[in-house]
């Protein structure tokens, strides 16, 4: 399982990175932590002609308050969670294994948009703001709902990079819950749920149960999808139980 050939660039600045993407467009893929992309390359499920390695773009590693650069690794966030809302901190140890967290990034996870992944669900739950940038059109900021287009599909144009994610401030009296179930630790979840209760308003997200992470309004049915690991009926039932569980957790947490 060896990747098909590609040209490799390692830009030293955001402008340089964006230049490369503008130049190569759909023929290029940005490389963040590689934990999702490199397996696809090895399996030859993706064969971009150009890889743009973002490892040495300093702008993408910045962190100020609740704004986290796209290239900050999950491990770095685990070591120093300052600025991250509590549900995100709780979710971190569930993301793969520690070796995967050493390389995998916040931005990479969001740009890849695996429906079972934690970060897209957390972005949706926490109503984060995602900043995208291209050379020719500059910066734009999207809500998670605008950013998430479909499984493995985001609003990113071929010449755009996700540069940072901004999480809103967490109020002192905020309550929350997070739960996921997987057959083995580090596996993609079979179903997951998370909630926040802020200013008395409840917000619930279900993930890994359906095609996409779902913001669940009162009375909404949980959208589910069956696959190799679990059928739709299982996911529906377990997701429902997890929603109850996280709401109970939020009720108990100060």
């Amino acid at each position, binding site marked *: 399982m060896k990747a098909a050939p590609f040209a490799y660039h390692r830009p030293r600045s955001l402008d340089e990175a964006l230049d490369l993407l503008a130049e190569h467009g759909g023929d290029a893929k940005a490389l963040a932590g590689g934990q999702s992309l490199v397996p696809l390359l090895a*399996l030859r499920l993706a064969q971009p002609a150009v890889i743009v390695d973002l490892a040495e773009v300093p702008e993408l590693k910045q962190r100020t308050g609740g704004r986290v650069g796209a290239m900050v690794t999950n491990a770095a966030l685990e070591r120093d969670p300052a600025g991250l809302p509590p549900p995100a901190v709780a979710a971190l140890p569930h993301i793969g294994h520690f070796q995967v967290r050493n390389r995998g990034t916040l931005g990479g996870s969001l740009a890849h948009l695996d429906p079972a992944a934690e970060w897209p669900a957390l972005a949706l739950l926490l109503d984060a703001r995602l900043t995208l940038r291209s050379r020719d059109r500059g910066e734009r900021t999207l809500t998670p709902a605008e950013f998430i287009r479909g499984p493995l599909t985001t609003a990113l144009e071929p010449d755009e990079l996700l540069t940072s994610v901004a999480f809103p401030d967490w109020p002192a009296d905020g309550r929350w819950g997070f739960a996921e179930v997987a*057959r083995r630790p580090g596996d993609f979840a079979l179903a997951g749920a998370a909630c926040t209760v802020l200013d008395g308003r409840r917000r619930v997200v279900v993930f890994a149960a359906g095609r996409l992470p779902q913001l669940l309004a009162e009375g909404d049915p949980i959208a589910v999808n069956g696959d190799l690991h679990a059928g739709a009926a299982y996911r529906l039932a377990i997701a429902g139980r997890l929603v109850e569980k996280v709401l109970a957790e939020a009720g108990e947490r100060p």
Partner: protein
Amino acid sequence: MKVLGTALYLADLELPGALEAAFVRSPVAHATFSPIALPAGVYDAASLGLEPITVEGPGLVVSRWPPLAEGRVRYPAEAVAVALAADRHHAEDLAESVFFDYRPVTGEPLHPEAPDGVLFRHHFTGGDLTGELGRAARVVERTFRTARQTPLPLENRGVAAAPDGGRLTVWTSTQVPHLARALIARCLRLPEDAVRVITPEVGGGFGLKAHVFPEEVVVAALALKLGRPVRWVEDRRENLLASAHAHEEEVGIKLALDGDGRFLAADATVVADVGAYSIFPFSAALEPMTTAQTLFGPYALRAFRFAARGVASSRCPAGAYRGVGMNAAAYATERMVDIVAAELGLDPLELRRRNVVAEFPFRSAAGRNLDSGDYRGLLDRLEPGYGELRRRQASARAEGRLVGIGIGIFNEHSGTGATEYRGRGVTAIPGNDRAEGRLVGIGIGIFNEHSGTGATEYRGRGVTAIPGNDSARVRVSAEGRIEIFTSGAEAGQGHPETYRLLAARELGVEPALVDVLEGDTDACPPGSGTFVSRGAVGGLSSLVEALREVAEMDLAPGLDVTHSVDPRQVYPSGAHLALVEVDTTACIPRVLAYHAVEDCGTIVNQAAVEDQVRGGIAMGIGGVLLEEFAYGGDGQPLSSTLLDYLVPLATDMPRDVTLEHIESPSPYTALGSKGVGEGGTIGAFAAVANAVADAVAPLGVTLTDLPYSPDRIFTAIEAAQALPG
């Protein structure tokens, strides 16, 4: 040294000038295709002109398996052509550029020789089944299903070949070097002594590498044709899709009982999905027969009947995976025993005690000659732990938790010998006719099991390619070093350590003076390789004989003695006890505690025995809870990565594993040893399954289909709760 990273596996070998291979594999299940003009560096069946792989024997339809497909592919990822380049990256680039026009075939049998798709069938009757059924106070019937799985050693397959003078040297990650030599020579139309097979360090076998595969034949042929070294290192996707699968069976049992819960007779049907071809050397007979002949193995039945079939499908060929059909047999039998216990309101341990074979030797209704054992003793050892677990269960249930206890008692066969194979129509390789020390050995092996048998021995299986003997050569060098060469080929079981121990004991020498070599067909005496746990049967017996001869000759420098043993099948056994909890939120089962009592006859190397039992248990846990190879409705393989096919991790092992040993020496092996490579898995298939079933029994659930995944457990609970009353 393995901890230093200096051990050399197939992919690590220095092969100057070697070309690396990448196979062009079929993207579809069953299709025909026409030859195409091939780019330079790509070879197809026509360019190599190889003999097909075939296996013969009673009950078998001979499937013809061309090493590279000839105009027809029969399963997804079947090898169609091979691309060579200076490195694997470029070989894959080249392979990717080759396109055949596949014309899917529907409604046609895979093999014209088997129009009904049945590649193997066999029937057996022992005792007065009709009479016993008539006398029965109760008859219980159930059908059980085991899942398609794959052995998944951590090292994938690999083979390299290079011409050497007028000969061909083949390095291959194999458990069966002499069989690899035999098949490669046959398919290349060479005399066997023109081929030398060498095994490098092997990173796990578990039965997968006890076969000889088309890729090995093709790489050897390429090296010969091109006059230069060629290597193929399998990748994990190929290993999942196209190496060997196993364990996909449906077992129907009808059990007749008397009024006291004594088992009188069993009537069984076993149907195994054996994939697209009869695998070499074990054939399509392996799994259905090992299952059928092992059903109710430890129990004293008065009559027994089975009908066994191996049915072809457009899937990867099935072969041996640790425990082989004995896993399904132990699983189905022990689930049945628990179901009967529940129906009768009897304690499961007590019901077993009432029915296990109590005196040895014992000829079972299935025709197996159980050499020695102490099955009641195995159960007695579990008794205290069992009582403790029932107390733990009671308090957990009081908390609303779903906690179950499962027992599995089994015997197995190991060390199938030449006489056994010949009795089944097996053609032995000439030159191994030494009669002395013929040891009966068919222990239901844990170990790269092959020629599955059930209650009856390999009779009627007719696997033609296995010689059936095991041999050992002991040489004393001029400096007084002891050199041991055997016909075995370990994949991590620690043979050298055990052989050194034995040599020290038999010869009175320091272990450091002993050199061990396996896996070089030029230096090692011919035999069967390593599978069906034969290492402790014929393997150790032949070694002991050779060592004793050397001892008698006072370790004279220059001595070079070889002994070959035709082992008689023997029967290790074990009783395992598992405590499993099923979580009530997501129905995820977890093994909390495990107690295994094993009887592998005389223990030669206790540490190595415990290594095997622990590893075997882990695989059994995987087999019951996690491992399942799935194909979609369109015939496409779904389990193509290690996130699809799940194997146990450190978190899947119970925190408490207690191992105990009983020794019932076999009268048929030199030391009384019987083999232990597979018992851990066989016992776990029974104990873990019963524990999960016991955990959810209060909800009215009866589980019959493996694996007991969270989804299957949930679905069964929902179905049971939906039933009226």
